[in-house]
């Protein structure tokens, strides 16, 4: 009996040690170009995927990318199925109640996109009577609920930004709000170019729009947090960040 218990304990320790070597980095399993989207073969590519590689290399960690459905990504982290989240997740007070974050690795403006020729602006008055579609559980949903819901006709929630974009093309919503980069990519596509245009950036609200995008981590894992912070600092200093960003963005998205 003791023997079995001992070997079991040894096996557990060994798996524990093996697991510590690879850090499982969760990304959202939904396409979010140009940050992360699967190519024809199913391999994930994009700025954020490259950034995971660069940060992990700089921090000397073995990282494994694990796609997880966006709406279950925080439970996956807290239950230990993944060890970190790098899925364009903004650092917010609300999320900090449940998880911890590294330093930010990017921060971009938030814009409103609507149909061409439709009269609107990225203000509560400019969106009065309009149907606004946003991705659920994002800072954009929180922002729209706080600033635009009172004057808008309706706020529709989507599982992915892609579905909101489709419904914008189909005329079921009048506007959508998201990260400028994600929406620039949509506006650069043939469908997006035909239907829609940017209606400008929304007014800042750091309480909701937060402190940029960071690596989501379990609370209390300070060693891992320090490693990620060191990795981010290193690639910013040695020019890797610029080199990784160049193919995707015209200007740096690190932000002020």
């Amino acid at each position, binding site marked *: 009996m003791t023997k079995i218990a001992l070997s079991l304990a040894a096996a557990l320790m060994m798996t524990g040690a093996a697991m510590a070597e690879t850090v499982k980095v969760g990304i959202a399993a939904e396409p979010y170009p140009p940050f992360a989207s699967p190519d024809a073969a199913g391999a994930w590519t994009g700025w954020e995927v490259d950034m995971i590689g660069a940060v992990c290399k700089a921090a000397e960690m073995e990282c494994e990318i694990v796609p997880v459905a966006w709406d279950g990504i925080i439970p996956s982290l807290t239950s230990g199925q993944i060890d970190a989240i790098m899925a364009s997740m903004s650092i917010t007070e609300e999320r900090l109640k*449940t998880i911890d974050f590294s330093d930010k690795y990017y921060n971009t403006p938030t814009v409103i996109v609507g149909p061409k020729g439709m009269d609107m602006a990225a203000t509560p008055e400019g969106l009065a009577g309009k149907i606004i579609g946003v991705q659920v*559980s994002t800072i954009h949903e929180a922002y729209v609920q706080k600033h635009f819901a009172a004057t808008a006709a309706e706020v529709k929630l989507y599982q992915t930004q892609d579905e909101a974009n489709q419904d914008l093309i*189909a*005329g*079921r919503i009048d506007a959508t709000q998201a990260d400028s980069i994600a929406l620039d990519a949509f506006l650069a596509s043939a469908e997006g170019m035909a239907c829609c245009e940017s209606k400008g950036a929304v007014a800042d609200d750091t309480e909701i729009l937060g402190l940029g995008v960071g690596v989501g981590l379990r609370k209390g894992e300070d060693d891992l947090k320090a490693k990620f912070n060191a990795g981010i600092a290193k690639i910013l200093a040695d020019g890797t960040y610029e080199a990784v960003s160049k193919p995707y963005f015209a200007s740096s998205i690190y932000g002020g």
Partner: protein
Amino acid sequence: MTRDFWLPHRIVMAALFAALVVWCVMTLRWDWLPDYLGLAAQGIWRTLWLLALSLLLGMTLAVPLGLAQAAGPLWLALPARSFCTVIRGTPLLLQLWLLYYGLGSLFPQIPWIRQSDLWPILRQAWPYGLLALTLSFAAYEGEVMRGAFRGVGKGQLEAAKSMGMPRLTILRRIWLPQALHRALPTLGGETVLQLKATPLVATITVVDIYAVASRVRQDTFITYEPLLLLAVVYMAITGLIVLAFRHFERRIPTRTA
């Protein structure tokens, strides 16, 4: 009645169930519930009317579909048969998405539809959900009704005919009532299945009770409690459906030859 019901094994089961409920209430997190009660009530209401309307419209389509297959001429039987086969042969989720993202995104490209008075309805999601649920129910029940119409004794129909009863009267007074009565137990089961098909509409932005549970999870990161509540809601509705069909089955007297 109550004496017969409270047998020892049932008392033990009820006690276990009560203990389980108490345990759930005491140990799990329910502090989110007051904030979402209004939304949950709206969600339940939407689930219920989607179910009721799709049952009603679907059954209205199913009777002619069944009749056409059981006794109709080839030019009616064949389209009915094809409709049932195609709808039953493809996933409901696929039909729903084809209607919403396919048909629904064609409409705005046609200017006169976009300018018409119907557009405020057509741009919403629920008409596509209702249509998909209705077509699905019609196809499955069309098949059930085909069997039910076939199963009614030929002798009765021939006797009625030889007495000079008009064909519509035969249908109304002999054929349909007996077919419905035969199909009733199956229809009860199919209605429960239809209830459990309704959460699919959450994928096209209709906020039914399932969508509300997802919202709670996404807003608060609480996973199990809303799902447990969701299970209880569906079980309660299922219980009502079962009771309603038991009532119908008792009320319609059996009159087979």
